[in-house]
Each structure stands twice: as C-alpha cells, then as structure tokens.
C-alpha cells in the first residue's frame, strides 16, 4: 500500500521552526496572497519572486525538501497535460509542427508559466498544512471568517464542521487501511489488471468504511450533545490566537511582494 511507505500528502509534521510558530491566520493569508499574485500575473519575474518566497519559507520551516517534492510525483500528469494543452491550443507564432498541430511560442511560454503557477499552488498549500496543526488551521479559518457572522452566516457551526472533518481524516485513512488489509487477506484483487475486478474490490472497502463513518458521526453527535453542545457562537476556544511581531513581519514581506507583483504588470 502506498500510505504505509511514507507520510500522507501534506501531512502535518510537528516542529518548532519560525514558520510553525507563526499564527495560522498569517500563514493562511500569506499563502493566499502568494497564490493570488501568481494567478493575477504570470510574468516570469513574478513567478520567480513568489517561488523564492516559498522556497525561503520551506527552508525556514526545516521541513525536508525531499518530502515536499515527493508529493509532486503524483501530480506529474496534471503538469504534463496542462503544458501540452497550453502549448498546442494557444494561437500565435508557430515554432514547429508536431503531427499536423502547430506548437506556438506563446503556447510554450504559457504552458511553462502554468506549470510554475501550479507548482506554487501546490507548494504553498502543502507548506501550510505541513506546518499548521489541523486544530490551529481550523481556528485560523474560523477567525478569518468571523466577519461573515454579521451577514448571518453561521461561522461557528461552519468551523466546527471543518475541525471535525480535519480531525477525522487520519482516523478514516487508518480505518480504510485496516479494511483494505482485511479484504486483501480474503483475496480482494486491488492490483488486478481487470478494471471491473478492481472496482469491485474497492466496494468491499468503501461499503464498510461508509457504514463505520455514519455510525461514528451519529455517536459523535450523541457524545457532543450529552456534553451540552448546542452549536451557535457561545462556544469559545482554549488559547485564543494572537498576532505577534513575527506575524507582522511575515505579512509585511508577503504583501510587499504582492504589491511588487501587481505593480509590475
């Protein structure tokens, strides 16, 4: 099984680096700013600027770069396909012909920058989840969304939704692994060359997994209600979030890069 060979894609790794210590809101905002700036402007120097910010952040977070890059292997087809489509379908000055289709210079440029933009998207978001614990991530999201409260949007319920979902992802993955093994020892063919056999094997995992999840959801709901959970905004978190100097500095740097990116259009 793939999962047991290494960590899951973007799994949180406990650490004590500067990046780990940043307020989750800083990291979320920073991540969005970087992603927005490359989505708005795809000149090569904008991409270079933002990619160096991310690389610096990865370096500061002391997360092993090899681990971050390993996840990229799963995305290689996405990269390849988007490059090919951009290269072939963009009209402009043809560079060469490939089996009757013209590949344009503009297409190649656009394709290359798309790859880098996807790369930044991937690196930014996985750095965020690798250095922020699910709990902090959820409280960060809640705090950032809290203004929506004035629009009568139930932010606190939404946030409990996110934090429970995040909380149960590892549990469900673990359970899926156990059921997969159990079915494998009953002869389920997960690597069968026949697609039908393979699909049928997966139902042997999905059905019990879904049943267990529904059961767990109803148990959890009962457990929460029996401890007086009523929803609504009366719930508070232990340990509220606070911006520190570091956060100001980080936001400042990223915003500066953003302004540069936008001004340089």
């Amino acid at each position, binding site marked *: 099984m793939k999962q047991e060979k290494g960590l899951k894609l973007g799994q949180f*790794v406990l650490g004590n680096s500067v990046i780990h210590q940043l307020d989750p809101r800083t990291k979320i905002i920073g991540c969005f700013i970087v992603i927005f700036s490359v989505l708005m402007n795809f000149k090569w120097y904008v991409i270079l600027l933002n990619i160096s910010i991310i690389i610096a952040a990865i370096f500061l977070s002391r997360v092993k770069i090899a681990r971050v890059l390993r996840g990229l292997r799963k995305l290689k087809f996405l990269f390849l396909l988007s490059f090919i489509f951009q290269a072939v379908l963009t009209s402009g000055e043809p560079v060469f012909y490939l089996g009757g289709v013209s590949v344009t210079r503009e297409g190649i440029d656009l394709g290359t920058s798309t790859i880098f933009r996807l790369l930044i998207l991937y690196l930014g978001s996985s750095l965020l989840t690798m250095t922020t614990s699910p709990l902090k991530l959820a409280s960060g999201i809640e705090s950032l969304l809290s203004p929506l409260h004035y629009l009568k949007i139930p932010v606190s319920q939404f946030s409990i939704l996110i934090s429970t979902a995040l909380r149960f992802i590892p549990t469900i993955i673990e359970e899926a692994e156990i059921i997969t*093994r*159990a079915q494998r020892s*009953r*002869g389920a063919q997960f690597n069968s060359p026949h697609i039908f056999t393979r699909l049928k094997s997966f139902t042997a995992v999905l059905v019990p997994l879904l049943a267990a999840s529904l059961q767990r959801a109803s148990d959890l709901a009962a457990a929460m209600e029996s401890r007086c959970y009523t929803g609504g905004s009366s719930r508070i978190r232990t340990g509220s979030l606070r911006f520190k100097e570091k956060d100001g500095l980080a936001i400042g740097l990223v915003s500066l890069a953003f302004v540069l990116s936008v001004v340089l259009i």
Partner: protein
Amino acid sequence: MPVIDVQNLTHVYLPGTPYEKKALDGVTLSVNQGEFLGVVGANGSGKSTMIQHFNGLLSPTAGKVTICGWDTAVKQHRNELWKKVGLVFQYPEQQLFEATVFDDVSYGPRNLGLSSPDIERRTIEALKKVGLEPDTVAGLSPICLSGGLRRRVAIAGVLAMKPEILVLDEPTAGLDPLGKEMILKLIKKLQQEDHITIVMVSHSIREIILLAGRVAVLEKGRLIAFGNIKEVLRQECFQALPGVMLPDYLQLIYTLAGRGKNVNTGIITLAEAELEIAKLLEEKNK
C-alpha cells in the same frame, strides 16, 4: 518442519520520517503444524504487526519470515499467501460489506476461483462451524445481526477459505461472556478436529492458558519469552510485566510458593490449583 518460521524479524514503520517507529525488534520464533500459539503483550507491543507478517500483508524491514516454506520477502509469495493463511482482524465484523450473510461469507471462496457448488458447500459448512444455522441467517443482511453474530459471520468468512493456518487478533474483544466462550470453543475445535495451525493474540492470559500449547510474549517489540505455557508462566520476567493479570488462583499459588510453601507451580488450571491447595491444607492438619 515448522509452518511458521520467523528469524530475527525487525519491522520499522515509516522509515526515514519523523514518525519512524520500530514495531518489532529481532523476533525469532517458529510454530509447528497443528500447534496452538498464544501471543501476549500490552497495546503497542508489536503483536498486530507480527501477525500481519504471517500472511504477507507486511514484509520484513530486516530478518526473514517463512510461511509453509514460502519466503514473504518475495512479492509473488506475499500476494498468494492469503490462500494459506486466514487472518481474522480485530473487530472483524467491521469488514462485512455484502448485502447478505451468504454473499459475504462466500467472498473469499469466490476470490479463490472455485465453482459455484463448491462455493455454496464451503459457505454453508463455514456457517455451521461457527454455530450459525445457514437456512435462517444466510439470506439476512449482516447489518441486522447483533455484534456477536456479526463477529461469527466474519470468522466464517475466513474459515470458508479453508486456511492451513488461522491467525486471530483478539477474537473475543468486546463480546459478552457467552460469546467469548463460544468463539474460544470454536477455535479449540478447529485445532483439535481440523488440525489447523492456530495463532491467537489475546490480552487475556486466562484464554491463552486454556487454549494454547506455547506462548510468545512481546514487550516493546521484543520477544521476552517464548515456549511452553507452563514454563513461561513461571518465569519472573513474565510475572513482572506490567499489565499481565494472572488468574487469581495462579497468583495465589505463586504467592504461596514465594512464602516457601510446598506447592507445585507447574499447574495451569483451576482444578489443579484446587488439588494443590487441598494438599497443602491436609499437610497442615497432620
């Protein structure tokens, strides 16, 4: 020739990551055909990791595991091993997925590629073995059965494949006393009548004492005791293990022996303990 031969088995989870964990460390043991091996140890001692090596779900980080003459380091062997070794996981009732009991129990035989009369015969046989009446339960959905019955259906699903070796991970956990008794009797019968080699993981020393011939004791991934149940029970290192709860009568006998009383510490059953105590009282009255 042993059917399970484990040489210096070491298993490391997630090597090279911050979550690296050595679950097994240099374990060596062997199980003979038709034997009943009990595996004891606290949570996290590596029991479940070890038994997953027995049917090729895991492959050794170091060392060698040979099952029925097959080296599990060879991928092809590993993929075929489920036909020889039936593995009943903890809470196996959670793996039921088909619409009817019959379909679920026959899942393994169907994967073996048997003919339909064969599949039906084996399924009915397996249901009978676990004490279920095929005519009444076969058409039911597993979801409408109680937890104990569902556990039996899941065990039947493994038995229907007619494994040479049956490995069970805490088969009685979470069952009521009657259910426990039923499962234990079933396992013992499989060993005695069908001559299946059995490996059973359990937290309950009592269960192991009643059933197993030999016992392996794991502590933090190391095998600290392995051998005949009577010998292992007497070992100090075993008795001193945190979390080992010996049955009351054994505690009594060992304490008496510790105080220098003349009792035989080589006993394992309650009846034997009774005899010893009666003997001791007689001596005193003389």
